């Protein structure tokens, strides 16, 4: 019962925050002509307008497609390489300076080069996403590997686990909670980097939509685009990341509550 109440309260506070933003936004926008700083109503109208034209939807689909492909590739590579690095000290020492170097470079900085190399389509954008998300996931997987209790591995081996079974039934679940933390961080960075990369050198995607409308002075669409970026991140958090965490790493948070 109290849990339900708490949930209702949380929702209420969340909606209150939305309302607060809308009020402040409206108040500020009253001081400007709508073509300079449009209010919520103007942006909503623009949203309906864009929806009817259908172009915006295709930009969103393009961005999401890039995100999903890039992120999926990146996560698989980071898992495999992270497990190898966790298992071999030499390989870990080889990777460490590379990881530090790439972690320090903003993924965005690669965009101009990647666009020259790979053209204007999906390929450079997917590459930016991979650069942005690969290292956070990799680092977390490596850390997860380092924190596997020795007794778990010994127990599994003495129960007859070896080879890929040891990897799949013991190592993989052991590192999943850490890996999912990495996925969270990687996701946030790659989503932002993708939008930025689309802004500087794309001809499609939500970032391009914002940049293009900025250039023609359509401020309503710029704000609409910004709202959609945040909204889509929220949506993916609720529909993808949270369920993923609950399904594969729920046990770790249960343990912490002990």
């Amino acid at each position, binding site marked *: 019962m109290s849990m339900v109440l708490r949930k209702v309260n949380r929702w209420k506070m969340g909606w209150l925050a939305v309302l607060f933003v809308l009020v402040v936004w409206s108040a500020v926008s009253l001081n400007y002509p709508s073509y300079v700083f449009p209010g919520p109503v103007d942006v909503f109208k623009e949203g309906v307008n864009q929806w009817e034209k259908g172009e915006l939807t295709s930009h969103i689909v393009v961005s999401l497609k890039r995100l999903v492909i890039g992120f999926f590739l990146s996560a698989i590579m980071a898992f495999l390489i992270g497990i190898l690095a966790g298992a071999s000290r030499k390989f870990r020492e080889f990777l460490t300076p590379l990881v530090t170097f790439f972690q320090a470079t903003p993924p965005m900085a690669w965009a101009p080069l990647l666009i020259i190399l790979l053209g204007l389509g999906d390929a450079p954008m997917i590459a930016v996403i991979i650069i942005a998300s690969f290292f956070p996931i990799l680092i977390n997987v490596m850390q997860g590997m380092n924190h596997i*209790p020795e*007794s*778990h591995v010994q127990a599994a081996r003495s*129960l*007859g*686990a070896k080879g890929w079974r040891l990897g799949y039934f013991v190592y993989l679940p052991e590192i999943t909670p850490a890996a999912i933390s990495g996925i969270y961080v990687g996701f946030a960075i790659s989503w932002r980097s993708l939008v930025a990369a689309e802004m500087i050198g794309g001809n499609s995607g939500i970032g391009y939509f914002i940049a293009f409308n900025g250039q023609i002075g359509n401020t309503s669409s710029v704000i609409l685009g910004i709202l959609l970026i945040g909204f889509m991140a929220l949506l993916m958090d609720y529909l993808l990341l949270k369920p993923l965490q609950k399904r594969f790493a729920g*046990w*770790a948070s249960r*343990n912490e509550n002990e």
Partner: protein
Amino acid sequence: MSALVQIDNVSFHYAKDTAVLKDIDFSIDKNSFVTLLGPSGCGKSTLLNLIAGFHPTYDGRIEFEGKQVKKPSKDQGFVFQDLALFPWLSVRKNVEFGLKMQKVPKEKRETKVKKMIEMVGLSDYDSFPISSLSGGMKQRVALARTLVTEPNLLLLDEPFSALDAQTRDVLQDELLQLHTKLSTTTLLVTHSIDEAIYLSDTVILLSKNGTIKDIVNIEIDRPRERTSSAYNFYQKKLYDFLKEERQSL
């Protein structure tokens, strides 16, 4: 009776360290319950790990079922001091783990797991996550997970040291019942004199310097009365040994 484990002239040291174990000789008969007792740091857990095959290089010879021990064998079951239960699996899946790794067919697996969980009294908890169990229950899961694979040798590394006194007594009785029922040869490591006398046929006393000080056969019929004079006799004997060890430091 024939020896299941034969240990000849075994010495061991960790890299760069001085010897942890020196000139260890003893054997473990089939179906017996043997305990390694000694002060902390005497190498009793290390010896258990050697027999389990966790350290492949050592001096001397350790034989299990007539073959030299070089790596972990599925015919030995090990219960760890920290239990090493898999926290992402339920009680049932933990118990099932070994059978699954040994590719036992699903139906057979399920029957065995169910029976084993019943035997340790956890049938009502079989789908519970490990984190929701009490210390004693976790202990039972660890025992069940090891025993369900029907090992020929059960190795226990201070399994009850983290439990409160009452739970420990209950679990010692349960362990004895399982030992009698399944007649699994058992080697226990403990620093508790009472536990050693209550459970074992034979107590091996390990000295601080990593050698065997004495081997004591506990000749009391079961069930053992903790207040009997025979019990007291052994208690005094083992207590004197530990006291001597402390003073020799």
